[in-house]
């Protein structure tokens, strides 16, 4: 079939590197996968039960475009409590189909053709393509292993042009588990303010920071709320990936613009997911903390095992990924991942799937049961010995 009937701007988007890799893994048997970017926990029972109850009550209709008022009030209370920013549930919050939709809406609402968007790499696979699909120009800024992949404000300055409109942040970061030291975050905020940029901050992993480390949202820094769209959801903290539910909080004019696109493309997020989300926000802390503690222990285990095996790996402070440095093996990220898969049946994701500066690293997710992690790291240790 001719590909010319596909629109140019879609055809020109490269296939996701992670998808390529997924297809190879799919074709193999008995693979232990450290390649999974979602919690291995099932959604806590009390949240599932709340959704079942709402179905029994017959809650099966549309909600308001912005999301049910009850959920928006819960979100406002939760964000105020945990992130110290207050949003008006009436016009500063929109409930979306996952954070992915919120990112897409925000970019489409903000970008004129040719506008540039700064974001830090290695990063979640959708950022570059989402920017392009919204008519923008992606401008990745590399972060460094020596900084544990946190962002330097000075590097942003170098990538700035007259066309820069938006800055995207994702801390803690998928795939590196990086967090931002508060001092540097303040510099990034000052940079955004100085150049009048809108900040999109994807804080989907913010509950998952370890060792009592407080999470700071850039939206809470002085003067930032007016220029920041805060994006968050339920997938990671409450193990709700398949529910597809997230939200954006921001200045009313931006939320209104996002709502315009959302109402014509999505209408509203599914009502059962919204009902479950209310339960998660209002009573989910205990189950979230239990999962976080489990992640923390696994992180400790995987980091000390990899270092013992001679693969340098820093102790990431957030998310559920480790990003070990495999340069000592003399292999590229892709070679390492493919050979490990072929010879040891262990799947990790090449760092390059998350940006060119991910070369020399691989992403290992520890959102996998402890016994699987144990076997996987033993096999990796065996692999690098040879």
């Amino acid at each position, binding site marked *: 079939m001719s590909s010319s009937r596909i629109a140019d701007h879609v055809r020109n988007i490269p296939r*996701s590197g*992670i998808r390529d*890799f*997924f297809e190879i*893994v*799919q074709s193999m048997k008995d*693979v232990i*996968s450290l*390649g*999974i*970017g*979602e919690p*291995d926990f*099932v959604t806590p029972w009390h949240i599932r039960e709340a959704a079942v109850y709402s179905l029994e009550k017959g809650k099966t209709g549309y909600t308001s475009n912005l999301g049910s008022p009850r959920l928006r009030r819960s979100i406002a209370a939760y964000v105020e409590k945990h992130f110290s920013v207050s949003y008006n549930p009436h016009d500063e919050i929109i409930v979306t189909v996952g954070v992915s939709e919120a990112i897409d809406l925000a970019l489409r609402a903000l970008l004129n053709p040719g506008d540039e968007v700064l974001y830090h790499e290695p990063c*979640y*696979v*959708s950022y570059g393509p989402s920017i392009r699909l919204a008519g923008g120009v992606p401008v990745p800024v590399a972060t460094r292993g020596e900084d544990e992949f946190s962002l330097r404000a000075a590097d942003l300055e170098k990538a700035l042009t007259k066309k820069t409109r938006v800055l995207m942040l994702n801390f803690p970061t*998928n795939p590196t588990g990086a967090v931002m030291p508060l001092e540097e975050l303040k510099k990034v905020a000052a940079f955004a303010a100085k150049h009048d940029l809108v900040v999109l901050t994807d804080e989907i992993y913010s509950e998952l920071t370890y060792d009592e480390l407080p999470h700071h949202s850039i939206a809470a820094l002085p003067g930032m709320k007016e220029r920041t769209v805060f994006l968050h959801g339920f997938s990671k903290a409450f193990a709700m990936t398949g529910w597809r539910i997230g939200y954006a909080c921001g200045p009313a004019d931006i939320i209104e613009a996002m709502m315009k696109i959302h109402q014509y493309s999505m209408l509203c997020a599914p009502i059962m997911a919204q009902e479950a989300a209310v339960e998660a926000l209002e009573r989910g802390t205990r189950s979230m903390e239990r999962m976080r*503690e489990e992640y923390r*222990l*696994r992180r*400790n*285990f995987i980091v*000390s*095992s990899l270092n013992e095996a001679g693969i340098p790996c820093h102790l990431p402070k957030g998310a559920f990924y480790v990003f070990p440095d495999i340069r000592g093996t003399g292999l590229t990220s892709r070679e390492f991942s493919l050979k490990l898969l072929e010879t040891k049946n262990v*799947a990790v*994701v090449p760092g390059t799937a998350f940006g060119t500066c991910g070369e020399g690293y691989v992403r290992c997710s520890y959102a996998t049961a*402890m016994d699987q992690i*144990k076997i996987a790291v033993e096999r990796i240790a065996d692999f690098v010995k040879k």
Partner: protein
Amino acid sequence: MDSLIRLLRQNSAIPRADLARQLGQSEEEVAAKIAKLESDGTILGYQAVINREKYDADAVTAVIEVRVTPEREGGFDRTANRIAGFEEVESVYLMSGGYDLLVIVDGRSLREVASFVADKLSTIEAVQSCATRFRLKTYKENGLLHAVEEAPERLAVTP
């Protein structure tokens, strides 16, 4: 809760080396902590949780609500300890509400439990009354579900 205790409660047979890695401590440190918890009586023992429907399915478990006349000195303690001393008795708790002691008794048969209640328990002087109920089915015990559900399938690699 302390992470070490939580991990041991989850699986007390966990290798010490795994514990050390998960806690970010040395094996020696972990061993010393466990030894201390054992010697000060925080850890009372290590037991396997058995699905009784698969093993020893004919055994019966009775849950007995016991009303007791408290003593001027010591309250319920002496009677409770006296009951706890019997080998058949699995657990004894002092309760608030309509009765005083909750006694859980394991027996090989209904007859054995009945004889324990009639001959031993109800004849203790301070015991005023016993209400005995039998367990019919177990769904969850010590935090473990008895029906093992198959884990839902996951995609092998996701972003």
